[in-house]
């Protein structure tokens, strides 16, 4: 069932809201060992249900009764917002993120806040203060990250859609590992107001779901201009249309030669499978040569950690959140609070960013990073002169076993080779599973603000692939 069908069943009374949610809550209880939820509150769910019951016969919203989970860096004033960190373990936000207001406006049911890598830093969920989320397909495996709980909640059928955040693949990579769809719109399409910044020029709200159509429905609800976010699109509202007669004939799809990259064999095979499929559907395949793609993780590391170092500085223990018990001077207060409150990966990135921004070397790497970022963006622009869509694997590998790579924190950065350029250049992207089960995924990358193209392509591919 998709959003439209479930909504209509609720509206018509065919499915009873209350019993649906009673069952859903039971199901959530039985899957507790997956460690998906950080905050989950039955009373809050039934409070929302009550409200919906009152209006059942009048104006039902587009998402009437649809169960949604939120990554725990998205502010919802009825539940804690921990960001997966001890720093905000007991933090209760006092306002809603704009996306949350928009979901509620259209009668979605927010069922809980889900697990994530600490402050969205990580790609396995292992940096969460609340322990790793498990992959619903195989609970020995990581579900990906940082939007681990979002992907897992959808894959485990505990939510129909989940909102995550994506700064370098944090929606698409877990979607791929959990074998679902993950969409990251063009920068600015969805407001970031109320979303805790990790690397603010890269962060985007993304949507995880079991099908493309639900992603489109949700984007149309939560997208559009927001006066609280100066980077949000000027378009008052988003109204993406699925075209039933979209096809790949007369479409040019750019692919890349994977030989230049370190990439797992299984992932490569699934990519080739997808390319063949798309070719057979009539698309013209164009092999593109990328000069700067191989620097993507390096550039990403510099840009991301530099932004992290400033975005994390507000967590100083003074106004909210974790505060150390032991301090004598103000400096002690900062140092001890931040030492106790932040996890290892967060500290690592703050330290890196601080170094990149230090005046000592004239901010050489920071400036260089910004330059290469521009070059990458120009390269994508040039390629989009020739092709409609660029197709890459979502990740370079398949999910690995929880705990198997914690010794080598830097090795996990490279899985984002194909993810991060999209964020660096403000493009749009959707990750699509190639096969059922643990498999490789592909991503359709589109030009900035041409999200409709990749969504239609994904929808067409989805139907042809099933």
């Amino acid at each position, binding site marked *: 069932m998709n959003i439209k069908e479930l909504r209509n069943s609720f509206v018509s009374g065919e499915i009873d809201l209350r019993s649906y949610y009673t069952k859903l809550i039971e199901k959530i209880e039985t899957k507790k060992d997956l460690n998906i939820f950080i905050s989950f509150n039955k009373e809050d769910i039934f409070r929302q249900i009550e409200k919906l019951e009152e209006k059942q016969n009048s104006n039902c919203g587009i998402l009437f009764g649809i169960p949604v989970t939120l990554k725990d860096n998205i502010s919802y004033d009825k539940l804690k917002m921990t960001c997966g960190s001890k720093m905000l373990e007991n933090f209760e936000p006092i306002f809603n993120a704009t996306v949350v207001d928009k979901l509620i406006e259209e009668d979605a049911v927010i069922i809980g806040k889900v697990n994530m890598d600490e402050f969205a830093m990580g790609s396995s969920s292992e940096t969460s203060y609340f322990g790793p989320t498990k992959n619903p397909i195989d609970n020995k495996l990581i579900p990906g990250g940082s939007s681990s709980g979002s992907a897992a909640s959808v894959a485990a059928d505990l939510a129909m859609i989940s909102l995550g955040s994506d700064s370098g693949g944090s929606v698409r990579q877990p979607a791929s590992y959990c074998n679902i769809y993950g969409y990251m719109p063009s920068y600015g399409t969805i407001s970031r107001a109320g979303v805790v910044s990790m690397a603010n020029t890269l962060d985007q709200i993304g949507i995880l779901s079991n099908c493309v159509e639900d992603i489109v429905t949700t984007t149309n609800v939560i997208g559009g201009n927001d006066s609280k976010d100066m980077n949000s699109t000027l378009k008052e509202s988003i109204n993406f249309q699925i075209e039933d007669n979209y096809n790949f004939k007369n479409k040019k799809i750019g692919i890349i030669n994977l030989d230049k990259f370190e990439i797992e064999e299984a992932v490569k095979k699934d990519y080739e499978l997808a390319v063949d499929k798309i070719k057979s559907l009539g698309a013209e395949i164009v092999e593109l040569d990328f000069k700067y793609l191989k620097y993507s993780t390096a550039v990403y590391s510099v840009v991301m950690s530099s932004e992290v170092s400033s975005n*994390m*500085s507000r967590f100083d223990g*003074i106004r909210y959140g974790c505060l150390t018990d032991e301090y004598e001077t103000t400096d002690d207060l900062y140092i001890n609070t931040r030492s106790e409150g932040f996890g290892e990966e967060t500290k690592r990135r703050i330290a890196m960013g601080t170094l990149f921004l230090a005046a000592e070397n004239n901010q050489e790497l920071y400036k260089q990073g910004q330059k290469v970022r521009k070059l990458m963006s120009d390269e994508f622009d040039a390629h989009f002169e020739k092709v409609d869509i660029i197709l890459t694997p979502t990740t370079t590998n398949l999910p690995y076993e929880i705990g198997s790579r914690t010794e080598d924190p830097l090795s996990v950065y490279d899985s984002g080779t194909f993810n991060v350029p999209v964020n660096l250049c403000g493009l749009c992207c959707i990750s699509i599973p190639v096969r059922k089960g643990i498999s490789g995924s592909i991503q359709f990358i589109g030009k900035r603000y041409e999200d409709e193209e990749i969504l239609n392509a994904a929808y067409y591919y989805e139907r042809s692939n099933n």
Partner: protein
Amino acid sequence: MNYKTLIGLEIHVELSTNSKMFCGCKNEFGSAPNTNVCPICLGHPGALPVMNKKALEYAIMAGLSFNCNIRNSFKMDRKKYFYPDLTKGYQITQQDMPLCENGYIEVHTKDGIKKIGLIRIHIEEDTGKSIHNEEGNTLLDYNRAGVPLIEIVSEPEMSNADEAKEFLENLKETLKFIGISDVKMEQGSLRCDVNINVIDEDSNFKTRITEVKNLNSFKAVYKAINYEEKRHLEMLENKDEGFKETRRWDDASNSTVVMRRKEEGSDYRFSVEGDIPVTIVEDEFIEEIKNNLPELPSQLMKRFIKEYNISEYDADILSRNKYLSKYFEIVTKEVKDPQLVSNWLLSDVLRRVNEAEIEFEEIKMESKNFAKLLNLIKNKDINNNTGKKVLRKLFEDNFDPEEYVKEKGLIQVNDDSVLEKIVDEVLANNQESINDYKNGKDRALGFLVGQCMKASKGKGNPQKFNEMILKKLVR
């Protein structure tokens, strides 16, 4: 030794917008602590800054008033440091692309008008305030966090305390004129730091720059500069370049005190503020602001000279203060004698303003009453002396002077027959003075007029007394 003093000023000015720089919170001085705050100015996770267009407009107004170039597109930057009154761990400011650049402010020196260059004017947000109480606790008030500021940075082109003082006065009055700040130093809406060093022009040996921070009055700025100039000259004489250091002015000891020595500047780890996109400032927008700017002191001065035919000196003083210049024009319209109005305003009225230690805009005496008083004088309904006495009262209590002089019987006596009677009486009683006068002692005439005034209880027309006595005492 041939030396030169180099003084540069850095001035922070709080803009008097209704709301803060990046959120809708009230921008208001004196509210109860932490009542004008929200998630944005408190730096709550997820809160994003939204630029206050009015603040931008105000900053451009300042730039235009000080002859700056206005940038057509600008970005904001983050300046990072940890301090309890800084809510986000960084201050949103402008580092390498200030909104306004390359302006100047004119000051009068004995060698004529001197242009002091302005390097830049940029926009930024203010921080909160730490209050250290007697128990040794630090209390934090975030009402000021996020209040819009402009920072004005001058070239080190002032050579003495007088120039710095005039620069500051000019700056303050201009900002008041254009109405973008209440420029109250005691409330922190205008804050000044001084950079100073001296250079031996023969040998090019110079002392290291001292920064004197947090000066809270023009007087303190003046004193601190003089103190530092002397200190630096002594260093220069001893060929001691000193330290690059930050000092503060200590009122109690009348001297500056070292706060910290910095061999190298702090590292603020500047980076781009990505939450605020690059902003385009259209020429039309700048033009519109320019057209709406009020007349500035320098323009006013020129107009006053031309329109009212008063001296440059008078026009200069009148045009420096927004309220004074307005008052002058309103009163002049009623009295139709600009020189008379100017004379009275600049001498008697300003003296009273200074004595009362108030700002001109705070005077109680309404312009219409002052105009009436001057008309009484101009029409010789009262004499000058009476006028001064009435002014003293009028300044305190603001009443209708026409009624007052009638009530108190202060109307000048111009009737020749009445005056002549008094003169005759006085002459009859002062034969000695008459003799003195005839023997060439001119002072005796003044005495006789004075006696006439006394006899008329101050109401007689002194000129007429003078003329009559002269006529009667032909030598």
